[in-house]
């Protein structure tokens, strides 16, 4: 502020005495420059006065336990509805295990014992895609990364020109910022989802629903990398 016609700071903080205040008002009535500045800053003082102090406070609201309980009940109901959708993936993962066992006993998709599961370059997807729980044309695959120990099971369901991507990812430490990427046969990378690994996610994995603008027959692989570029696991299709 390089004009000093009037004590705007005093005016805006309402700290002028009656005489000073009257003088300030008289000046503002005649000086467009000061008036514009005062009005512009007064918009902000009024906006500040309209903010309830509670909006700046941390903590739960008072007397709102019922609100929390109601909210938790709603998400439980919604997630039991969503379970029916997600169980497709669970069923597929189970089918992968069964198919792998039939195909020769390779330890694939065994989320509970990662250490003895070898990396799988070519999961037996053909045997699985006809499984009873899979949507028509769905392709699934599972892989365990030998270096990181991270595991992924994916189910790709075709849509015209794109795919729905369901993935279960486990074995990634808490706090990692992860990207689920679809790599097509020419090497082009498309993002299908991203997440932050929670404590529970680190212990027992994370399930993801995503999508990618890649036709199913063009998918080369699906992989999990961090924002920093570290690859945790990749599965070929």
């Amino acid at each position, binding site marked *: 502020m390089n004009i000093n016609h009037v004590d705007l700071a005093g005016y805006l903080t309402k700290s002028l005495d009656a005489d000073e205040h009257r003088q300030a008002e008289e000046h503002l009535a005649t000086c467009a420059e000061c008036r514009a500045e005062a009005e512009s800053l007064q918009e902000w003082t009024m906006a*500040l006065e309209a903010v309830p102090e509670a909006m700046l406070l941390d903590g739960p609201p008072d007397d709102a336990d019922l609100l929390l309980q109601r909210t938790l009940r709603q998400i439980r109901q919604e997630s039991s509805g969503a379970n029916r959708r997600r169980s497709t993936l669970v069923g597929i993962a189970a089918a992968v295990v069964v198919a792998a066992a039939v195909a020769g006993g390779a330890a694939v998709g065994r989320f509970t014992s990662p250490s003895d599961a070898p990396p799988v370059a070519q999961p037996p997807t053909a045997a699985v895609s006809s499984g009873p729980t899979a949507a028509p044309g769905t392709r699934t695959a599972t892989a365990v990364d030998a270096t990181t120990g991270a595991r992924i099971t994916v189910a790709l369901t075709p849509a015209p020109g794109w795919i729905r991507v369901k993935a*279960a990812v486990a074995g990634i430490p808490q706090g990692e910022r992860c990207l689920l990427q679809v790599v097509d046969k020419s090497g082009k990378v498309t993002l299908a989802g991203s997440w932050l690994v929670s*404590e529970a996610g680190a212990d027992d994995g994370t399930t993801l629903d995503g999508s990618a603008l890649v036709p199913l027959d063009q998918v080369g692989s699906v992989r999990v990398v961090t924002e920093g570029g570290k690859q945790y696991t990749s599965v070929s299709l």
Partner: protein
Amino acid sequence: MPGFRLQRRREVADEALVRSLFAEHGRAMLAYATQLTRDRAAAEDVVQEALVRAWRHPESLVNGKGSVRGWLLTVIRNIVTDQIRARNARAPEVRESPVDVPSDEDHAEQVVNAMVVVDALSQLSTEHREVLEQLYLQGCTVTEAAKALGIPPGTVKSRSFYALRALREIKSLSPAGTERSAS
């Protein structure tokens, strides 16, 4: 079956997310929703819906540019704005208290900026933020603010003046400036 265990753990983690959002931001969320709706019961419904949206899209909480609180408050504003629009769309047919509807909308527009202000305040220096909180949110006089902050009254005046200018620079109060992608 491993898959079911995975699912169960996911549900536990989901509940933990909602509980922690509620514990940390619930007061701010309900205060904002109450100010927008002027109705505690309606505000609680809005907060519930906002928490459910956060649960459905946890990735947007961590991937957004702004603060988690900013995201939650933006969602609350969007929910209330949608409700007002829906009510206005119905109003001509049902003709229920037509006078109340536009005044609700005006009111919402006036206070919608609270979310923008909270966001902008969080970007000020601590010195600037404190003096504005004392004067305009808590309604202290310059003398009271000076005592609370342990600085001379003259400093309260000049600091608050520069803080207001900084606030103005951070964000414009125009409606376009309040738009953020969250739904």
